[in-house]
């Protein structure tokens, strides 16, 4: 039961948290990171390769961990977060307290629970998996269906848990389309003869080099794209899956039998931190993520020492998370400078003298 004071406490050791920590501690602030899983790295622990250049998630993870000397406490289960005169105090289950004038929430996202879309048969049909499940197969370098055989035909379903009023999430997760393309390319590299069909409503490829990935997947890897959203799946006796859909571009009903279905699940807000934060309602947008999505919104959170960065403020790629984390780290730095230092001048330079205590 101890209490340690820092300049900034970061909740979440994912890409955003690690990036912010690396910038802040290079500037001389004392930082600590609290992580709820056993090992740090956030979702970098479950990806295999990252879009758009197929960089190794493991390598990026090592790089980011090496970039900061801040202590990472994991696993930590936060019991309460309270606001004090000096800032924030985070108490964990063992009654240890971590106090700081600035608190950065970088808790990331939660992949959509595909069981909620019961019509796709996740959890009911053996050969229906999610993109997260597929990524685990990539990490183990072994992609097989439920019977242990290498699949000959695979279908990717876009927009599972995104843009869907029926699951209460009307936003677009912005990164599932490119994830699907990336995984399709990885599959083709691993199993050259496999047939891949992607079923989409729209292809949202806004990031840099995303369109190149798309063209590559079509031209070099012969991935098929069919515009038609799936509503149901059905299982044959041999556990292969029949899909019935409308090819909307052809305007005709169609069907296909595949050995495996991959659901590209969306990025949903992680609600576990919400009930712990004091007076948080105005800071949460209508879609459940932090912040209101307005221009230059990082500035708006700067007056009370509570900051948000990364996927917890909206669906983001890792590149975007680290970029935002850098920006927010600078905001934190300015905030702390005002709070902790007084400015003086001598004949040579401007100095900032730190307050004691």
């Amino acid at each position, binding site marked *: 039961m101890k209490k340690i004071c820092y300049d900034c406490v970061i909740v979440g050791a994912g890409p955003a948290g690690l990036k912010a920590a690396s910038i802040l501690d290079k500037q001389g602030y004392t930082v600590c990171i609290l992580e709820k899983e056993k090992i740090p790295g956030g979702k970098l622990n479950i990806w295999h390769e990252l879009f758009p250049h197929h960089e190794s998630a493991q390598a990026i993870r090592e790089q980011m961990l090496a970039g900061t000397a801040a202590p990472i406490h994991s696993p930590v289960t936060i019991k309460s977060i309270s606001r004090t005169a000096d800032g924030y105090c985070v108490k964990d289950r063992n009654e240890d307290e971590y106090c700081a004038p600035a608190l950065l929430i970088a808790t990331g996202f939660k992949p959509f629970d595909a069981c909620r879309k*019961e019509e796709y048969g996740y959890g009911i049909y053996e050969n229906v998996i999610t993109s997260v499940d597929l990524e685990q197969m990539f990490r183990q370098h072994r992609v097989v269906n439920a019977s242990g055989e290498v699949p000959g035909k695979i279908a990717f379903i876009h927009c599972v848990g995104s843009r869907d009023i029926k699951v*209460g999430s009307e936003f677009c997760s912005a990164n599932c389309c490119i994830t699907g393309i990336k995984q399709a390319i990885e599959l083709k590299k691993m199993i050259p003869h496999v047939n891949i069909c992607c079923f989409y409503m729209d292809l949202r490829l806004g990031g840099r080099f995303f369109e190149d990935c798309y063209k590559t997947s079509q031209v070099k890897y012969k991935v098929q794209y069919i515009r038609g959203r799936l509503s149901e799946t059905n299982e044959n006796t041999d556990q292969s899956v029949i899909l019935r859909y409308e090819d909307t571009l052809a305007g005709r009903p169609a069907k296909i039998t595949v050995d495996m279905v991959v659901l590209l699940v969306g990025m949903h807000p992680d609600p576990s931190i919400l009930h712990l934060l004091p007076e948080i309602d105005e800071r949460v947008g209508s879609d459940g993520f932090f912040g209101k999505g307005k221009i230059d919104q990082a500035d708006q959170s700067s007056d009370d020492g509570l900051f948000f960065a990364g996927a917890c403020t909206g669906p983001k790629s890792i590149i975007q998370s680290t970029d935002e984390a850098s920006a927010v780290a600078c905001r934190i730095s300015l905030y702390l400078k005002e709070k902790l230092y007084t400015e003086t001048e001598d004949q040579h330079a401007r100095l900032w003298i730190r307050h004691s205590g």
Partner: protein
Amino acid sequence: MTWFNVILILPFTLGLFVLLGVLSVKYYQWFRALNPRNKLRLWKSLSRKEILSSITEIFRECLLHLRIYHQKRRLWYMHMSLAFGWFLLIVVGHVESVFNTGHILSSPWKSVFFDYFSRGQEATGWHLQGFNHLMDLILLFILSGLFLAFYKRINSRSFGLKRRPLHNPHDRIAMLFLWYIFPMRFIAETLNHAFYGGGGFMTGSFGNLLTLPDNLNYLSDIAWIGYSISLGGFFVVLPWSRYMHILTEVPHILLKNAHIQAYQDKGCTGFNIHACSSCGICLDSCQMTNLDSCNGQSYYFIRKLREPSGVSENRMMNCLMCGRCSADCPVQVDTLSIRMNERIRMNDDLAFDYSYLDQQGKKVPHARIAFFGGCMTQLVPGVTASMKKIFDFYDEDYVMIDETESICCGRPLFLSGQKRAYFEIMKYTRERILSCKPDLIITSCPICLTTFRNHYFFPVPVIHHTQYLESMISQGLLPPGQSDIKTVYHDPCELGRYLGIYSEPRRVLRNIVQLQNKAYKQNQGLCCGGSIADLEMDFEEKRSIAEDAIQQLIYPDTRLLATACPLCKVTFATPNIIPVRDVAELYAESLSVTIPARELAAKEALMQN
């Protein structure tokens, strides 16, 4: 008969004649409009024992309003005091006048205006005095109810009504006349006794208190005329107002006890909609009342039907057809049939073409049990997968008719009013199901089951899957072992109110989970809001009904909501408040058959939530 007497009784008599005339015409028209089969049923019922139950019901409901007594006490007292009180006033008044004049058949005016006609005559004998007091007591009884009625206009919540019904002009005028009758009688009698003496404990005493000079005795006459006008005015307006229910309830009860439904029967519909007393109790039962945009409740619907302009399409289509209003109605108006009639009238002439259904020609293998999931089965594959596991476990010879494609039973078409189209689909679906020559048909969808029982007339029994599971349990075929997960069971409207299947699902659940259910009257179960009968509501409105229903059903420590209808399952799962499972899924889990690893993980995640 002096000329003044004539003036006095004229409004009353004219009103009464108009009333009786209009009533005769209307009742005659409605009786004639009954279907021939229903007419026969009615005549038969009059000579059977059912007539006795009808008579007791007339007494219990029309006069004593016992159904309201069991729901809202204050409201009951208000309605009952007016109804029963007025009945007593008439009957006892008539007896009083018989006693006084010695003639059994004295004219109605003698009893209605008794105190006027017996002016100056001393009441001799304790029994005649007794009548004075008795009549006063009854009048007091009525006035107390009237006072409550005034108060209800101001503060309806104290009567347990969440929403005050908004009356239209006809009803308001009739209500005014009705409210004038008894105070006018009170004033007339009091003034009468003030000038001419006599009277009971109330009117007599008040009369004695008023010391007025004798030359003002015309005031008493004016008051009597006022009384007569109130009565006459009320009688004249009555056939066009909600108070038509006072008399129409009687034939309505006769029809109801003869098991005559208003479905496709203009005459019975006429009796039904005029037997509605516009009491407003159905407004509280209706789950759409909380949505500000709703105007489709039975109260407004039936009232609009009585008006010449009729019902607008939006109002007619905006109904869940859940049956809660009919279950709570003190008069037992057959709201569902009436609404179906309107829908059929408006929509039955729409075009359709189902010839493509004929080209299927699929061969379905023969089996003992035909399992029909219903069209929504494809959206809840957990239910069919569970039923498969269960059938395999019990080694049944079964075929799943709609395993890989959706087949519709046709009921959604029927509920929208497109009856001919529905019968067309029914032909094909019926043939499809019977093509496997089953001995038993099991379905997991209560909506399909309702329509199978109503119209399909299968040559073999057709049951719900919870009934099948319950029979397995009765035969001792469920392996022991019960999960302790706290579960609440929700009665689907079609399974509960329409089909009366309440106990089987509960029995099944009690053996496999820890069932915690509030004890409530069976037919007052909540609707999930997902109704296919409602065509007006948008997604947000339906979801808010589902959320409200869930909050009312569950306890703070409930972990699971169990239901027996695929539509309820989809509707309750959408707000993501609590996990929802079908009874079949829970049964399959409890059979401890091998569960794929991912499903187990999902189950564990569910336990941790």
